[in-house]
């Protein structure tokens, strides 16, 4: 009975995520970017003037909604458990590299599915790369990888990320002079503020209840043939396909796809790094925000690493344009892979061989 209920929550979350992702793009967010954690992190970094690209500077209420929705539901249902202390600095850097990988592909794992659902075939290489990266991560888990060391920490720490989300939300409404909101480019493209916030809160709350995570869904299936989250993910995909078709946002093909490129090899590698990194820190970028909202201090550190990634992607040109990945982006992906594999082997607990 509990399993059926979990599947239901997962499927409902998937359906809302898929619908929300398409609807927000229809209502004004950039094409195929109704929900994109990495793009939105870059936007928020810009709004805080952590980078200088005004076209990518906006406080996306969806992300604040994810954290606050997760926080409110967790707090209200007694699931707000403040834990941390499991390699926080390592998680910070993995969070950073995950955003670099996403920037080279131009999208987080959720956007990857939204792009696929909108007919963008350049996301196929990304999907294969992500699955490959997760598969590699699962191999490390099976061979003894675990970050471990999670413990209860003072409760105040669990409130910091929701508080940060709340402060950013206040900044969005009040617009103080040190917050920069771009008036052209992707920054100027956004759905009505309250609709975005509402969507973020609902998706955040549902994701907290279901534990929906793009990489977690695939990891659980590869690791134990467990399909609960995968059902949610597939629901998100099919719902997004249906609504993309209904709302006239479906365009099948490789060319003329918004914010995409044809460097499939680098796309594959970038998303492999995202998949591997996400397995190491137990969750895709979206899941890190949800966990940060429910009191996971380590996920909060990963989220801050993602924010730093969102800034440095522009300052160091670590991403891609429609022409393909930059040289720095390629180096970033390779460095991220090296870092992730090194972390994986450093944290392996090897079985002792008998003499």
């Amino acid at each position: 009975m509990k399993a059926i209920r979990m599947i239901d929550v997962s499927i409902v979350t998937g359906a809302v995520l898929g619908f929300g992702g398409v609807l927000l793009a229809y209502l004004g967010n950039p094409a195929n970017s109704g929900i994109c954690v990495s793009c939105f992190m870059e936007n928020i970094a810009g709004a805080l003037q952590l980078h200088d690209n005004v076209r990518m500077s906006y406080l996306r209420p969806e992300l604040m909604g994810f954290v606050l929705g997760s926080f409110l539901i967790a707090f209200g249902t007694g699931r707000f458990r403040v834990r941390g202390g499991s390699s926080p600095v390592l998680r910070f850097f993995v969070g950073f590299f995950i955003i670099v990988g996403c920037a080279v592909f131009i999208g987080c794992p959720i956007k990857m599915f939204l792009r696929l659902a909108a007919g963008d075939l350049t996301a196929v290489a990304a999907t294969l790369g992500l699955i490959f990266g997760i598969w590699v991560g699962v191999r490390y888990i099976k061979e003894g990888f675990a970050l471990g060391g999670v413990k209860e920490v003072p409760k105040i720490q669990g409130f910091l990320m929701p508080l940060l989300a709340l402060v950013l939300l206040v900044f969005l409404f009040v617009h103080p002079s040190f917050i920069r909101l771009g008036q052209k480019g992707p920054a100027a493209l956004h759905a009505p503020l309250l609709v975005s916030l509402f969507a973020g809160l609902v998706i955040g709350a549902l994701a907290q209840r279901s534990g929906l995570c793009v990489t977690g869904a695939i990891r659980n299936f590869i690791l134990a043939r467990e399909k609960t989250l995968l059902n949610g993910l597939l629901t998100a995909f099919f719902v997004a396909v249906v609504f993309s078709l209904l709302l006239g946002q479906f365009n099948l093909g490789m060319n003329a796809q918004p914010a995409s490129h044809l460097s499939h090899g680098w796309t594959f590698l970038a998303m492999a790094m995202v998949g591997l990194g996400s397995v190491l820190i137990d969750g895709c970028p979206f899941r890190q925000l949800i966990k940060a909202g429910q009191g996971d201090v380590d996920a909060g550190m990963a989220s801050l690493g993602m924010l730093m990634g969102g800034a440095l992607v522009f300052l160091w040109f670590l991403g891609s344009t429609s022409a393909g990945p930059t040289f720095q982006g390629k180096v970033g992906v390779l460095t991220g892979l090296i870092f992730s594999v090194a972390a994986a082997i450093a944290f392996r607990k090897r079985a002792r061989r008998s003499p």
Partner: protein
Amino acid sequence: MDWLDRLSVAAIAGLALITISMLTNHEMHKKRQDDPASAGKEAGRAYSLQVEADKKLYQQVAAFREQGRYADAMAKLEDMIERYPDKSLSYVYLGQVLLKQGKLGAAIHNYRRAVEMDSDYVDKRTPRFMGDAIKTVVEEGREKFAREKALRPKDKDVQRALKDVYYLQRRLAGGCE
């Protein structure tokens, strides 16, 4: 809560109140000083002035183009590119002149360079927007070079032209860039 806790909470509340009042006062003062509407108008005026200055700068090129003196226009543009390498408008004019001469591939390549330098050409929210004109040229190029690719699949020039076409198609499609 002992006396130290109570004192700390009171101190936090007091400090928070002072900080919020200071911030509110500062923001209100700043907003009065630079009213967003007038700041927006100011930015718009600066943009219009820039567009006007560019028009003057490229006056001769535009005249050559209208008179059909394409060689003169090209020579002038080469000089402009050397003198003002950051001016993306040179590549727009270059594209237009090449288009008049029937050199579709080269024209598209120069439009691409212009868009790479300044995204405003494909951003509907800016006065520089010329997405519709670019789209027409790109559509023409896509048909032409797809046909040519079928005939000469290994031709490097055709491949490059198609790459430029696809690049511009992606930029015209929008998204997070």
